[in-house]
């Protein structure tokens, strides 16, 4: 119960931070996606047989849904699918190291963007994929931020273990 409450508060804070504070720290009009990065990192550090990642995906997705123009459920579904795929990937690989994290982060950023594009096209009933440099900026910005957050979390976890 404590764990659930912690994630409810943590992701509430992260979503509001992303929608209000980080809006001022854009690169090429791209706001960093701290919530997505946090979900990927959590699923990386959690053992693949545990299921807390799904709970985290639902909580984070719910908040993202609240602050989006999509119908409720789109972000929950996208993060649940992503969590499922990450867990399957690490179960299949059987080990967790930095390079696999890099791969899963890269995959997650592309999957997330594609999923939203499909939902958007489906809702508007017009399919177009305008791949431009902004998508690359988004990918690069979030990727760099993801690696930085990964290291911070790793250092924090190592210190916690040593104590």
């Amino acid at each position, binding site marked *: 119960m404590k764990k659930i409450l912690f994630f409810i508060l943590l992701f509430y804070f992260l979503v509001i931070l992303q929608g209000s504070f980080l809006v001022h720290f854009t690169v090429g009009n791209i706001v960093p996606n701290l919530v997505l990065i946090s979900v990927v990192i959590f699923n990386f550090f959690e053992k693949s047989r545990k299921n807390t990642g799904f709970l985290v995906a639902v909580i984070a997705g719910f908040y993202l849904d*609240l602050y989006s123009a999509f119908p409720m459920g789109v972000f929950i579904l996208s993060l649940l699918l992503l969590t499922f795929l990450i867990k399957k990937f690490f179960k299949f690989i059987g080990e967790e190291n930095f390079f696999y994290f890099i791969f899963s982060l890269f995959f997650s950023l592309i999957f997330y963007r594609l999923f939203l594009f499909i939902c958007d096209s489906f809702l508007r009933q017009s399919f177009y994929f305008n791949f431009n440099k902004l998508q690359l900026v988004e990918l690069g910005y979030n990727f760099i931020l993801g690696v930085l957050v990964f290291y911070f979390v790793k250092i924090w976890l190592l210190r916690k273990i040593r104590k």
Partner: protein
Amino acid sequence: MNLFFKKNFLIILIGILIISSFNFYQKEIRNFFYSVSQSFQKNLWVKGANVSDFSKSLFKSTVLKRENEELKKQNQELFNQIVALQGLAEENKTLREALDVGVQKDFELVIADLIAKDLSGDFLIINKGVSDGLSVGFPVITAQKALIGKVSEVFENFSQVILISHPQISFPAQIYEKGITGIVKGGGNLRMFLEKIPRDPETKEGDLIITTSLGGNFPKNLLIGQVEKIQKSDIEPLQKVEISPFVNIGELEIVFIITNF
């Protein structure tokens, strides 16, 4: 094995039903969350703007020096105006009144605070809703009469504003003093284009783009942006330009909703 799948299937089914049911009450749920977070979000928005200004100023010291020189010159020119304004009690109050008079002369307006940027794209959330007389389609502008977007969804005390840079948006506009009419189309991530414009008369970088009364979506003569880049093609009879918007969303705190025009 069968039981395991049945159990999982049941959990997924219940999950989908619960999530789908949110959509029936989404206005109430969203309104509740926005109300709870409003002051927190507003504070973070202002803090973000301040921190961002500070960090930008650290990195742009040379640019600042140049700007400082220009501002000194401007300062001289503005001196007379400052003297004229000295009689007024508070500077903020004066500016606000001046802005109100300027814009309110032309339209019926509702002032709203910007509380968050929507996380899925070119949307904003403002703290005025149905209870303040807003409804879907109302144009949203700044104090300088620059068009930002229009109200796309209204809740009890809040509204979502779709920005004119959203790919879903397209409306007629014209290049100021040239009489060239084209279609503004959103390109996503605060990018916009003016499409289907003829080659003559020639369009130049820096040309002003304003709204027209065509289409009836927006009042005429609202600022949209400036021509940033011209995309010419030898084959096409019409050309397309990229628009640099007048409004920097990050610097906005207050917007005006036109309720009657």
